[in-house]
């Protein structure tokens, strides 16, 4: 079996008296888009920095792309930090080539890739200008390129969508999805849980330096033990009278919302409905949103945990 893109086991990090990450286990399978969720100060940035070996963990083991972080791994990872910066007085093409070379590319390759990206993002005619004259949006595009110019196998994005204009949000999503189609793994952190819900296959939620839950988004939702059904039908509602499957039913007029008993199979209810002879117009699983699950699980912890976790990590 192929090794995970990232594997953390029992990782902890404290700054002075403040615990930023506590006993974190994390496995990011290759080829997934993985969301690291949590409120500000939960320890997301610290976790990402530990994965990148920018910070050393106080305890635990870190494995990236199947090995301990070394120069080879660094060259295969692309990082877009939350605080984004460029050399203001350096020409764009030179700068991007430099970042490529820094990641172990040959100068000519780096230059060619950088030019290709600049063309694609419509900055090619300004390749020989310094960044200081660029608009914020253009600087952001240059920043994206610097993250992917070396075709990283693992992309780590810290709060990537904060501060972007809507066009750049789309540009970045496009780049991220394209990298994933090419087989890359993408990890991004966000406090905007809706972003994660749309993009991620798997998530890890942390609050107050601790992991609250992780797994496939679908599994997380399933594990929340709250599986609701929206059913619209014509005919007798008698099929809902099944206490081994249905916990409660609420009528919304055009449809009913059914909360199932924990562990019940929606398929069984569908079968009952079909057998009872009603006509089904809609039979839909409505999952609780990640936000609801998160608030459910972490609500009591964030109140005490957030105060402890400062450092903007």
């Amino acid at each position, binding site marked *: 079996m192929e090794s995970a893109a990232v594997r953390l086991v029992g990782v902890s990090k404290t700054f002075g008296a403040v615990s930023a990450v506590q006993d974190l286990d994390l496995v990011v399978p290759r080829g997934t888009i993985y969301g690291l969720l949590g409120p500000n100060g939960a320890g997301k940035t610290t976790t990402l*920095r530990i994965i*990148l*070996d*920018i*910070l050393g963990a106080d305890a635990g083991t870190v494995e990236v792309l199947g090995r301990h972080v070394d*120069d080879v791994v*660094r*060259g295969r*990872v692309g*990082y877009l*930090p939350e*605080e*984004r*910066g*460029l*050399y*203001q*007085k*350096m020409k764009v093409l030179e700068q991007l080539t*430099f*970042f490529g*070379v*820094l*990641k172990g590319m040959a100068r000519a390759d780096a230059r060619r890739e950088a030019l290709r990206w600049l063309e694609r993002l419509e900055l090619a005619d300004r390749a020989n200008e310094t960044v200081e004259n660029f608009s914020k949006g253009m600087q952001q595009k240059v920043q994206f390129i*610097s993250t992917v110019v070396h075709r990283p196998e693992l992309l*780590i994005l810290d709060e990537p969508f904060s501060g972007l204009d809507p066009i750049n949000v789309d540009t970045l999503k496009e780049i991220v999805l394209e990298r994933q189609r090419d087989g890359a793994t993408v990890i991004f952190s966000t406090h905007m849980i809706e972003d994660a819900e749309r993009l991620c296959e798997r998530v890890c939620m942390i609050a107050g330096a601790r992991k609250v839950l992780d797994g496939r988004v679908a599994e997380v939702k399933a594990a929340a033990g709250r599986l609701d059904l929206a059913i619209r039908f014509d005919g007798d509602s008698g099929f809902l009278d099944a206490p081994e499957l249905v916990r409660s039913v609420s009528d919304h007029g055009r449809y009913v919302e059914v909360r199932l008993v924990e562990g019940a199979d929606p398929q069984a209810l569908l079968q009952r409905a079909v057998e009872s002879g009603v006509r089904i117009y809609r039979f839909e699983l409505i999952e609780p949103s990640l936000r609801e699950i998160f608030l459910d699980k972490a609500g009591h912890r964030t109140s005490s945990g957030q105060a402890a976790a400062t450092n903007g990590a």
Partner: protein
Amino acid sequence: MWAIVQREYLQRVRSRWFIIGTLIVPALMIAIVLVPIVFPIENAEDRVDLRIGLLDETGEVAPGLAEELVGEGISARMIPSLPKVPAESLGAALLDTNLDAVLELPRGALDSSTVVLLSTRRLSRNERAVLRDAIGRDVVRTRLREVGIESVSPEELFRSPGVNVVELSGDARGADDAAQAVGIIFAMLLYTLLIIYGQMVTRSVLEEKTSDIVEIMASSVRPWELMAGKIVGVGAVGLTQFSIWAAMGALITAYGIAAAAPMLAQSGIDLTGFTIPPGLLLMALVFFVFGYLLYAGLFAAGGAMLSNEQDVQQVMMPIVILIIIPVILLTPTIETPNEAWAVAMSMVPFFSPVLMLARVSVTQVPPWQLALTLLLLVAAIMAITWAAGRIYRVGILMKGKRPNVPELWRWVRHG
């Protein structure tokens, strides 16, 4: 790391600042050499333009003295007596007779210890000296004539031989003025370069911090590589600039000395054949490189502690003081390069680049002292770079408050 070195180097060497700085210094050197040659400055102090009246009651001194004064470019003529006016209007009366001063030589002047010069204006130091020497020579000549010796001139009589000091410990190179000057120039140059390029390292580190680029760098290379890349890159810029200056300096001195030789000869300085020994140049290079490496680590760590430009001076101060101490000790060290304290200080790592270089240029330093100094210096470079690397690693990701000393110590311990 090579990419970082290259970036630091090219960004700086291509900058306007570097090109201007590199050209201005040789231009200044040329100016310093050329200006006195092209426009010989007439020093007001040096000009002697006097009209003297001689009132000689001895009847023996005046003719020879007049000749003596005319030889110095002073017009001198005999006057029979002072104008018969009250003392307070004597000055005006003298000016009317077209004289600046009157020298009174009363009877017995040859035996007395002073003679009187009545002057209508303030005489410059140079004018007084010329007059004093001329009068002295003539009085001595007159006395010699009185005792019957006329074949010897006073100059010959009083000429003393110059003393050339030859140091016998080692080669024949003595601590002459030229060697001292070379020692001071090298030491000051080293000091200047350390400060300029040390600050450049600090600013380079700070620039990456303030422009939020350091995190991307830290995800791509190890912190010590980033630091080493900066130090080497900036150092290479320094070496480039210094080489250009040194080459220009050598050319200018070579042609400058040749051009200025006649003038210098007039002042009794003979620089023909003066060269800087190649061994000394090599030592200068070694101490430049090692001194830079030692201080660059400190300057880099200093930059990593900062979060904004305003604090730069505060963090630099202790480092700059470390560089200034040997400069304060420079002159006494060059005067007495082999005193115990000078030897000891010149071996302390933070001072040795400046002080040992100064000693090497003025005296023969025993090989064991040189070896020990270099050994200590290399050990210090390794220790400082190690500690600086740890401070750097923690510091570059820190924002806000500058760390205090206990915090720094924790950074070094836990890195």
